[in-house]
């Protein structure tokens, strides 16, 4: 990214921004990611995938390696709740279901991808972020209101892309992590790399368990006693392997496998006497292979992936029972294929043509039948780029086994009048979301006549980067205003003439919001400081005229105000990392009744660490306090969040263990 250094006195605007920043006392960032493409004779390493290549007109946040390293022993839900622009609807301690709510939308409107493949549940349409360890990704890219023309179904809120990348410079390493903390929380991780100039192999694994039997005051129970959270243990194991083979400067082959198994006890809602006897098991197997090839003026990428998910929810009425009250297994598998051809017409103009094909199979007890479906999409994209302007257009037409969505398109520009110091961005795109398998096949109620949800979103943004002249001193600010409309939103309602619920295309939602992010970095000799802040105002309005009693109400569990700050200080071998989060009031009911309103909360985490080095080993030791102020709060009504918790982390890394391969 190019930048302009401003020596001497700050310009008037710069001084004003500095003043605002100082007064604000906190700040965030995001990073506007500009194109890193190479137009002619591109090397295969730098061929960006389709979604990344055409994202300059969209609001993107890339979580940097420092942030990922800071939360490497947490899951993606925990990471994004602190450092991401997304509100995470968490049901409790680490390992509990964490559903993303992006720009006020429900979780099924956020698409989560792994190396370009969507991994949202096919039955529910959403992704439980607690099942994705932060250590299993090398880069997290968050796209706000991602266009369906590029990303496909279910991106009214946005998209979260987890990517694995080789590090050709680091050819051998072995890393071990251990974490222990409150409520018998233990996590052990392993990472290793092997390779040479042509071949790179990575293995990552982890094992985690926790009792999560923290104490909380049960405000809903007689006498409001302090109780221990029961039936809340979790056990999680996962392994990921990635292989990269650089056949030539123009050809690369890569493959990855990710296996994970989680057993989770499901605790009761507050107020319930006794304890729950419910458990959920999730097993996933994900595998993909990809081949990239560049030519003189073009590039080709072919990839294919297989995704398997087994889930079993079981519940006993009491511990001694032999039989289960609920025993609900499900099995889904998806085979996805993606082909993309990119042509660089000249320095300014690029075209992409893509094709996707997916085959889905599902075996769910409640469907009373085996399900088989296909989905197919044709995609086209165009980019015009100069030093100061990037304009993108993309198109998609999807075909599937049932009702086809309308053709999708997106258009946007990013204008940089003062080089990269200032940018102005505008984006408009259409969206759709296909009904989930549960929506279509659940018995009773499943409705195969459902249409896809559809709508659009538009946003305008401006950002300014200020370089202070001193090394490492920089401030950025970005302001975005957006609106998103969802039509024919699917909702389960009581079916007339029958005593069960069924899904129908009934709702309409309009979401408008303002997002401000700031980031400051300063360096004073060996003291480094960075301060990142994100503030979101979100108005997610129910405009369903069939529900006049809820008309114009705020959507459930959508805070109007959300503020996140991360402060990092580094001095010599020591680091301090502080996370401060404020979440405003939320409504648990569609009717926005104040009796069902959740209080706002302010939570602080603090981490202190020290790096050490004993050749050939280096590492760090970290002490962490989560919920430092021991606040009692709830994200989801009547699911208590944990209080003050202590953790110790040990991270050891060995480099150059072997002779060069």
């Amino acid at each position, binding site marked *: 990214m190019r930048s302009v250094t401003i020596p001497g006195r700050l310009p008037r605007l710069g001084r004003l921004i500095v003043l605002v920043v100082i007064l604000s006392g906190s700040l965030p960032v995001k990073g506007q990611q500009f194109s890193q493409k190479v137009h002619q004779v591109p090397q295969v390493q730098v061929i960006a995938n389709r979604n990344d290549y055409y994202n300059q007109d969209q609001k993107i946040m890339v979580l940097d390696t420092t942030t990922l390293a800071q939360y490497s022993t947490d899951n993606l839900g925990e990471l994004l709740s602190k450092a991401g622009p997304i509100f995470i609807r968490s049901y409790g301690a680490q390992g509990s279901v964490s559903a993303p709510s992006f720009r006020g939308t429900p979780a099924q409107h956020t698409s989560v991808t792994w190396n370009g493949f969507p991994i949202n549940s096919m039955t529910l349409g959403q992704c439980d972020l607690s099942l994705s360890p932060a250590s299993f990704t090398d880069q997290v890219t968050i796209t706000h209101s991602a266009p369906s023309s590029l990303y496909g179904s279910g991106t009214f809120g946005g998209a979260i892309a987890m990517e694995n990348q080789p590090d050709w410079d680091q050819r051998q390493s072995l890393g071990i992590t251990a974490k222990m903390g409150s409520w018998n929380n233990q996590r052990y991780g392993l990472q290793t790399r092997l390779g040479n100039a042509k071949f790179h192999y990575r293995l990552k694994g982890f094992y985690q368990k926790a009792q999560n039997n923290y104490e909380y005051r049960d405000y*809903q129970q*007689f006498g409001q006693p302090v109780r221990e959270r029961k039936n809340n243990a979790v056990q999680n194991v996962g392994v990921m392997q990635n292989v990269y083979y650089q056949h030539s400067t123009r050809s690369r082959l890569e493959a990855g496998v990710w296996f994970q198994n989680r057993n989770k006890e499901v605790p009761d*809602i*507050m*107020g319930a*006497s006794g304890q729950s006897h419910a458990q959920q098991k999730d097993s996933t197997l994900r595998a993909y292979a990809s081949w990239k090839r560049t030519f003189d003026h073009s590039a080709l990428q072919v990839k294919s992936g297989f995704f398997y998910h087994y889930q079993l929810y079981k519940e006993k009425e009491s511990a001694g029972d032999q039989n*289960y009250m609920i025993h609900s297994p499900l099995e889904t598998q998806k085979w996805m294929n993606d082909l993309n051809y990119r042509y660089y017409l000249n320095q300014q103009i690029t075209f992409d043509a893509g094709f996707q094909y997916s085959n889905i199979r599902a075996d769910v007890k409640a469907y009373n039948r085996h399900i088989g479906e296909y989905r197919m999409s044709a995609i086209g994209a165009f980019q015009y780029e100069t030093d100061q302007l990037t304009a993108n257009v993309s198109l998609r037409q999807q075909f599937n086994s049932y009702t086809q969505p309308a053709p999708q398109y997106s258009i946007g520009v990013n204008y940089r009048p003062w080089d990269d110091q200032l940018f102005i961005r505008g984006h408009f795109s259409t969206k759709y979301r296909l009904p989930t398998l549960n929506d279509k096949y659940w018995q009773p109620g499943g409705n195969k006549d459902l249409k896809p949800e559809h709508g659009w979103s538009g946003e305008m943004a401006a950002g300014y980067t200020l370089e202070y002249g001193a090394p490492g001193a920089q401030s950025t600010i970005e302001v975005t205003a957006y609106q998103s409309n969802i039509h024919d939103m699917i909702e389960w309602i009581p079916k007339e003439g029958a005593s069960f619920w069924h899904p129908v295309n009934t709702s309409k939602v309009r979401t408008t919001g303002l997002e401000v992010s700031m980031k400051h970095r300063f360096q004073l000799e060996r003291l480094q400081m960075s301060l990142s802040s994100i503030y979101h105002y979100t108005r997610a309005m129910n405009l369903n005229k069939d*529900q006049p009693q809820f008309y114009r109400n705020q959507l459930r569990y959508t805070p109007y105000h959300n503020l996140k700050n991360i402060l990092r200080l580094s001095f010599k071998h020591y680091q301090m990392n502080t996370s401060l989060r404020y979440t405003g009031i939320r409504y648990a*009911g569609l009717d926005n009744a104040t*009796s069902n309103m959740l209080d706002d909360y302010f939570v602080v985490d603090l981490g202190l660490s020290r790096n050490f080095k004993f050749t050939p080993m280096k590492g760090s030791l970290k002490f962490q306090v989560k919920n430092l102020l021991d606040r009692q709060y709830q994200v989801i009504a009547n699911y208590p969040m944990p209080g003050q918790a202590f953790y110790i982390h040990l991270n050891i890394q060995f480099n150059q263990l072997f002779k060069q391969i």
Partner: protein
Amino acid sequence: MKNKHMNFRKTIISIFSAGVLIFSISACEESQTNQNTPDVEGIYIVNEGVMGQISGSITLVDPESGETIQEYFKQQNEGRSAGSVVQDLSFSGEKAFLVANNSKTVEILDKENFEARDVISGLSYPRQFMAVGPNTGYLTNGSSGDNTNGEVFVIDLENHTVADTLEVGKGPESMVQVNNQVYVTNSGGYVSDSSVNIINTDRHQVTGKVEVGAIPTDITKDLNNNVWVFCKGLGGWQGGPTNSSLVKINTDNQQTTTFDLGGRISSYGNYLLASDANKDKIYFVGMDGVYEMDVSQEELPAEPIIQEIPYGLDVNPETGNIYCLKSEFQARGYAIRYNPDHTLIDSLQVGYSPNAVVFE
């Protein structure tokens, strides 16, 4: 508005206090005269709340003015909700018993001020409570999701403990007492059943079982001591659908008479049967509305008296007013009141998913 409610609440409490005194003085006389039209001093709407939330509540209604106090339990208990899926409320002596199905509790309240005094916990799926004697109550419990039978807990009303457990059919639900016998509908819970168990209240023993229609959810009795059972019929997911039915049980010989309702009713509610003060009429929810039927009739009436499919149905034993409870599921529901001549009185907004009215 708040002050107005506070005043009303004080008024109601005062009325209760006076009522308790009057009741104490007149109890002996009342039992001798078999009073059929008791004075109703308070009307309590039982609101289940939204499933998955803790938003169950009790709405207190002034019998005269129709003025309501929402969230009465919450007001009297330091802002605590009445529970998750509040299923039932009943009274015995100076106590009220509040059953919260998803909270798995029965809270014992002071009848006078509705403040919680104790709780019965350790339950798995409580449904309804009924006092069967001065120191004994019955509580139906069990979802039968694991295909095993449910139970009726014999509750010691002094210590609020489970004194005995009686095995009954699957998903035991509603109860009615006829002399020293309690009839319990086995609604199937998470599965299905089509029976009514009989329990002897002297010995606390299950003494019999009567086959009725599928999914019996509600029960009442008439002036002849016949028991009437409302059966919803099997849903499509239970291997149905089968027709809903009304079954009359002659309690002398346990013989049954079945009235087929001509289809499976569309109401989501369970408590869809009521009798009037004199117990010479019953009211039930049919395919196209609420029906009124003389207990001596041998055929179902042709036309509904109210064209409404409610979530719950009850009749004021003092005035004969009919209460149709309408659920909006995600929003607060309504108690729509009708005169005994079926003309509309008013519609009161109550809590979430009102399922029953308790007249006390």
